[in-house]
């Protein structure tokens, strides 16, 4: 009798365990598939803090960031082609200025030949910054024409973002050349968010998990 009970117990346990495991798996599958419908997780940085992740807050913040990145003040130096853009209508830069290998122009038309360390006084004169340049030819970091989904993925991709990790991306928004977009001199429409609001949105997007909006 004792032997019979032991046999019965052994045969019952696997079935119970399997039911529990199946239940847990079902919950995981339903939950993750729900996220996949809305967001694609883009985190390539292994040190992200799981506790702070919030896909909804992250994506909402990125949509604010996206408005800024696609504004002429940012996008004009992240063109799809090899010429920088110019003006609020993002036309090709006068003089057919070229990107060059390093993103600093070519021959007699290098960026810093006209773009001084500071703005030049006057309406629509060349804006200035000591680091004025485009992304280099081997990593163009194109904004022009990118959807929110594509741009978020690109920015979080170490192989496409200038080899920046999470910390460096957070710092990049504080770079003087990025900040210059809000102070380009007379006649230049600033990005649609204030610089401080942009920083808040940028940090939120990344710190909450750097999720990309759905395609």
């Amino acid at each position, binding site marked *: 009798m004792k032997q019979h009970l032991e046999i019965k117990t052994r045969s019952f346990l696997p079935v119970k365990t399997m039911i529990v495991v199946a239940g847990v798996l079902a919950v995981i599958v339903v939950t993750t598939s729900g996220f996949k419908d809305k967001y694609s997780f883009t985190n390539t940085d292994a040190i992200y803090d799981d506790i702070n992740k919030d896909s909804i807050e992250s994506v909402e913040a990125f949509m604010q960031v996206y408005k800024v990145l696609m504004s002429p003040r940012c996008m004009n130096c992240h063109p799809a082609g090899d010429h920088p853009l110019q003006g609020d209508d993002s036309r090709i830069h006068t003089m057919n200025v070229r990107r060059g290998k390093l993103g600093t122009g070519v*021959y007699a038309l290098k960026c810093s030949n006209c773009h001084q360390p500071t703005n030049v006084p006057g309406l629509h004169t060349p804006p200035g910054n000591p680091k004025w340049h485009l992304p280099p030819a081997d990593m163009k970091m194109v904004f022009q024409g990118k959807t929110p989904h594509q741009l978020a993925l690109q920015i979080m991709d170490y192989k496409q973002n200038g080899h920046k990790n999470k910390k460096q991306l957070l710092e990049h928004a504080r770079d003087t050349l990025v900040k210059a977009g809000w102070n380009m001199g007379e006649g230049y429409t600033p990005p649609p968010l204030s610089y401080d609001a942009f920083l808040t949105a940028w940090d939120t997007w990344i710190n909450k998990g750097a999720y990309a909006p759905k395609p």
Partner: protein
Amino acid sequence: MISLNVNQKTYQVDADPNTPLLWIIRDVIGLTGTKYGCGVAQCGACVVHMNGEAVRSCVTRVSRAVGKKVVTIEGLSKNNNHPLQLAWQEIDVPQCGYCHSGQLMSAAVLLRENHNPTDKDIDDAMAGNICRCGTYLRIRKAIHLAAEMQRKGIKNG
């Protein structure tokens, strides 16, 4: 006082650090070969070399030139015998001539970095130098000739 090195000569100038370099070169130092065109870095008439780069002196504050080597058209060569100057004479490039010191200074950077430029290279380098007389085709021809002279090591004087 601001100390400037222009055409390998040191000048002490009494000027506001924000004064455009062009004003200093022309009105203070007295080198008038460099021309004022637009004043907003759009035409290229005022191009000079600063540490070898073709900067537009009308928007370059004199303070930026401190500690750097400035070269104007007067200093491009010792005897007006830079291959570009020789080619310019050979082809008889200028019409009114106003833009040509800037044209030459821009072309000099091109030839330094590219000894055998194609038409496209020339366009890429020279599109920021405007010539109201429309001497562009002769400019292009002269740059090709100067490149050839440079490759052959031709220099007069």
